[in-house]
């Protein structure tokens, strides 16, 4: 079989240098959307990287981890004093260190979200319109107080000591809840986390389905990312709207077909290894000694936090 190479491939191409106005191209909507697919892959890999570290928190029995998590969330929700919430913050810091997770990286994300929402929700709580009390920072004055619906608007509006305390408490509560959730998520691989739900008697079939869906999100996100990069490498300039829509539509169809093939073949894979509608999986819910010790530490810490509140 002889190769019949077209002659143009064997001669160098005469290139024309593009002319016209220089400038940066604005990313298209589709570019931004597809880039988010790559972000999904990145975050899944980051979580898996963290969870694979050989740490005390990483190796903890996931069921014990989930029980401890729920217990601490309840503690965070019920304690109403600043010192108690601060002690929880400190405890969570220790958990991050034990899990060897980059605290700065995670807190940068958390603080951004917490402050953004906190600013909108907690700022009004600091004002004497919502929380009456001793004004420490004076903001606005009216000629006389007003009554608006159920709100009494005083003559002098400002930030109160009581309001600041309430806002700080709410802020810490949200911060602690989010950071505690993230330490559990980042230190436990998704499959182990799913397995922990077996203590709530969630059927294995459902857990397996969620696990498979998670895997396929990753595979398909990677496919989307690769498709996007392949398209980008061949697109010299922006494609007109209609052509871009057709191109994207055909790619979506390709990805849909690929996912369909994947699940059909996976089903064959399961059948060939004995799946007959019922899944038997190893039951490794039994905790070890260090899991029991860790749970005891968490329980005693919770009691300590409540004691701090009663002393405050």
């Amino acid at each position, binding site marked *: 079989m002889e190769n019949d190479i077209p002659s143009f491939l064997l001669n160098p191409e005469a290139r024309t240098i593009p002319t016209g106005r220089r400038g940066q191209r604005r990313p298209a909507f589709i570019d931004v959307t597809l880039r988010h697919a790559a972000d999904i892959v990145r975050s899944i890999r980051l979580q*898996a990287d963290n969870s694979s570290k050989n740490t005390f928190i990483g190796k903890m029995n996931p069921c014990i981890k989930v029980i401890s998590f729920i217990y601490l969330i309840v503690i965070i929700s019920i304690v109403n004093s600043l010192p108690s919430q601060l002690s929880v913050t400190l405890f969570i810091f220790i958990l991050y260190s034990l899990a060897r997770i980059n605290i700065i990286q995670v807190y940068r994300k958390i603080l951004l979200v917490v402050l953004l929402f906190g600013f909108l929700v907690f700022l009004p709580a600091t004002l004497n319109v919502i929380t009456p009390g001793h004004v420490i920072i004076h903001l606005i004055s009216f000629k006389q107080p007003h009554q608006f619906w159920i709100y009494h608007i005083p003559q002098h509006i400002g930030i109160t000591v009581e309001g600041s305390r309430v806002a700080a408490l709410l802020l810490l509560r949200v911060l602690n809840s989010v950071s505690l959730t993230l330490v559990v998520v980042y230190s436990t*691989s998704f499959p182990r986390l*799913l*397995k922990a739900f077996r203590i709530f008697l969630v059927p294995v079939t459902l*857990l397996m389905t969620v696990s498979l869906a998670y895997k396929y999100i990753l595979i398909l996100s990677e496919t989307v990312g690769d498709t996007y990069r392949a398209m980008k490498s061949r697109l010299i300039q922006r494609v007109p709207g209609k052509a871009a829509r057709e191109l994207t539509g055909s790619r979506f169809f390709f990805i849909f077909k690929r996912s369909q093939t994947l699940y059909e073949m996976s089903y064959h894979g399961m059948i060939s*290894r004995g799946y*007959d509608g019922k*899944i038997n999986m190893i039951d490794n819910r039994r905790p070890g000694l260090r899991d029991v010790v860790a749970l005891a530490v968490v329980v005693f810490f919770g009691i300590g936090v409540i004691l701090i509140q009663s002393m405050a």
Partner: protein
Amino acid sequence: MNNVIALENVSYRYYSKVLALNDINLQVNKGEIFCIMGQNGSGKSTLLNIINGLILPESGHVAFNGTPLTKASLEDKVFNTHLRQSMGYIFQNPDVQLFCPTVFDELLFGPLQMNMPQEKAVERGEAMLEALGIEELKDRPVYMLSGGEKKRVAIAAVLTLNPDILLIDEPLSDLDPKTQTFFTELLLELNRAGKTIVFATHHLDLIDHLQPRMAVLGADHRIQKTGTAHDILTDKAFLVSVNLIHEHMHKHGEKTHSHFHSHYIFHEH
């Protein structure tokens, strides 16, 4: 009866349109190494799927140990369990075969489906982790593995079942050279222990190593020739006709020349 797998006049079309197999007749004997060879798209994987009872032929008959593979027989729990215990199938694309949360779950899936006691299944799982040098992957989610690691896990996951018959689609794909050698030797060892090995490939070097009995599929999806590895690999005209060797260019020092050869069997200058 010596035949463990028998196919008689088997044909198959995808979506009732695209022809994948055309009038296939073959028998695989107990304890032999059997290779299904053919160029890309000739129907090798479809044939393995039919042998494993994953898809049923459009026409013709398939039998496992003398029992026909039909919708009714595959729905019979006792027969289905016997078939799945006896026949392990390693897919070409490990992504479709790995569906459990972690590597260890994957290894235990088959044995636990066969109601093996948990302790015994764990023992087997750990032995396979060690045998394939993947102990450090034990608790790793399967989506976090590289291509070669996935393949090794897929192999281990089927071997934990200790099947009598191993079906393997492209055994060496995704494996690095060292693991390729290891796996080829493992197949020879398993065959020496009495296991029947059926594999599909278009790599002539693997055939040279395993010396199987062979069936070669052509572009028309029919079996073109059956015989020993020696019969097939020494028939240069036949290999050229089924697109398994071709004239290609290569370099010897500064000299570039082209001729027919397979890199492994023929290299005449």
